[in-house]
Structure formats: C-alpha cells, structure tokens
C-alpha cells in the first residue's frame, strides 16, 4: 500500500532532498572505497604471485655472495614492511575467503538437518503478538521429534538435535524445544531397543535445559561449539567432526 500523498513545504522538501543526497553520497563513497580495496587487493595478489613464481625459479643455483652498499636511510626497513604488508594482506584476505566459505558450508548443512522443522511450520495459524512479532505454531511437535530421531542417520544425534533447535523460529524457541525434547523422550522410552545408545542418551531428557546439563555446557558455549561442528560437517571434515564430538560428549554422558 502506498503512503498517503501529502504536499511538502519547501523546508520539508529541502530536508528530504538533503537526506536523499546524503544517501547517494554515502553509497558513492562506499562503492569508491570498495573499488579501491578491490584494486589494492588485486595489486597485492599480483605481487604475491610474482614473488611465488620467482621464488620457485628453476635456474641453476647462484653463488650467495653479498656486499655492502650505501643506500638512503630506511631502505631495508621499507623493503621489510613491503613484504610484511603483502603477507598480512594476503593472510587476511585468505582468512576472509575461508571464513565466508565456512559460513556458506555451515549454512547449507544446517538447512539440510533442520528442514523438517520448516516443513512443520503452520503458516495458517501464524499470528502477531502485541509487539507485532510473529508467533509461530507447528503442526506437530511429535512429528518434528520423530524426524529428528529418524532423519539423517548419517549425522550424529546431537547435531541433529541442534539442527532442530536452529530450525525453530525465535518465538518461544526454548519452550518449543522443551516440548520436542519431551516428545523425543517418549519415543525412545517406548522402544529403547530400537535405538542405539547415543540416541537413547541424547533424547532421554524432559527439557532442553536438562539436555544441555547432560553435556555439562551452558547454552552460549553450546551454540558456539555446535557452530564449529556444523562447519566441520559442511566442509566434510569428518575427522574434525569426530574430534569435536568426542570433546562434546566428554561431560557426564
């Protein structure tokens, strides 16, 4: 719906124009800075690759025979700083690229193990609370619990539980997770022999808080830790997954 049309005074008009020009100016500066950053990165990358290529030269070994020479002050310091700055920029940009790749890998993996939650969102019963925030309902907590236990058996149960938690929407997330934990407890209690030891231990809790207590971990640490595990899964680094899981389960379990 369009806002109601309103005549603007000259003063209001000028103010609006100033705001728009301010936005355009900021946009232009951001883009110009980004272009400069891109150009600088390309320049540094080219120098780094040139140094790499020259360093790997297969020429015959040459005698390492040096002499001293008078140069302007700070010549050597400037040479050192140029190399250090190049190495630091490369290390940072590689770090940023790796970080972006990790985020993407983690996001895709987490979406996969939490999609059963999204499948259960009840869009018809969606309402807003008194603050205008969406209140989400789910068709069946029992179904989400069952799918958490049964789906993606190639992924360990703790990570599947995390996937369910992350898949839940913000509204009453912990309360909804408590309900799912109770449903999972019912499922494993009804047929304990049907599930392996890890599943029974992970799912036999009547709240999410109890589940975290069984791992001897607070929620903040848990979320950070599970981020690492899902990143390792996303990158298919199963040795790392195993190492992290062993450490996660080093609590009372």
């Amino acid at each position: 719906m369009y806002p109601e049309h309103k005549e603007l005074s000259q003063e209001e008009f000028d103010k609006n124009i100033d705001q728009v020009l301010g936005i355009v100016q900021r946009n232009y500066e951001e883009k110009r800075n980004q272009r400069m950053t891109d150009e600088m990165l390309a320049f540094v990358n080219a120098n780094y690759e040139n140094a790499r290529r020259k360093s790997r030269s297969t020429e015959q070994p040459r005698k390492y025979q040096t002499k001293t020479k008078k140069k302007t002050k700070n010549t050597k310091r400037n040479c050192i700083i140029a190399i250090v700055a190049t190495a630091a920029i490369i290390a940072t940009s590689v770090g940023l690229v790796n970080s972006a790749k990790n985020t993407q890998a983690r996001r895709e993996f987490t979406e996969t193990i939490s999609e059963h939650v999204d499948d259960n969102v009840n869009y018809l019963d969606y309402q807003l609370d008194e603050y205008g925030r969406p209140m989400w309902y789910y068709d069946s907590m029992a179904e989400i619990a069952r799918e958490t236990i049964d789906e993606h058996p190639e992924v360990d149960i703790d990570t599947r539980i995390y996937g369910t938690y992350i898949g839940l929407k913000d509204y009453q997330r912990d309360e909804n997770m408590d309900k799912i934990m109770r449903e999972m407890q019912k499922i494993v209690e009804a047929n304990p022999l049907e599930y392996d030891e890890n599943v029974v231990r992970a799912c036999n809790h009547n709240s999410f808080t109890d589940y975290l207590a069984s791992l001897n971990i607070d929620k903040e640490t848990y979320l950070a830790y599970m981020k690492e595990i899902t990143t390792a899964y996303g990158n298919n680094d199963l040795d790392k997954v195993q190492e992290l899981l062993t450490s996660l389960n080093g609590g009372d379990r």
Partner: protein
Amino acid sequence: MEEEVKVIELDDGTYVVDDEITINNTKYVYLTNEADVMDFYIQKVILKDNEEYLEGIDSDEEFDMAMQAFLNKHKQELDDFE
C-alpha cells in the same frame, strides 16, 4: 642520511638482502629489488663445497611457510610503522 645494507648482484638487478631466516634447518633469504620495493622473492641457501648458493624453493607450500615465518618475525615493524 644513509645506511649500509647488504646487497647481492643478480642477472636481473641488484637485490637488498632483507633477512635470513632458518626454518627446519634450511636457511631462507629474502631479497628485494633495489629498484622496486614490491619486487621481492625468497631463495634458500644450499651448501656446496663449503660455499653458499641460492636455490629456488620447491613448492607453493614452502613459499607460504617462508612468508609466514617472515610475517611472524617482522609483524611488529608493520605495527610500529602504522
């Protein structure tokens, strides 16, 4: 104001010897073209008949490792420069 620096004459110009760093018993030499501060490279030193020779490094990984060692040793100078 001037300073004395160690240099080496090579086929394609004169290079300032920025540093020598020994990693896993191999000595690496960091050289910068005196005419272009961004033209640098790394060589390793081998001993032959009791004389030192410069030789190219073997792999990209070895190059990255030598660069990392240089960064670790000199990063403070970058901080001081800034």
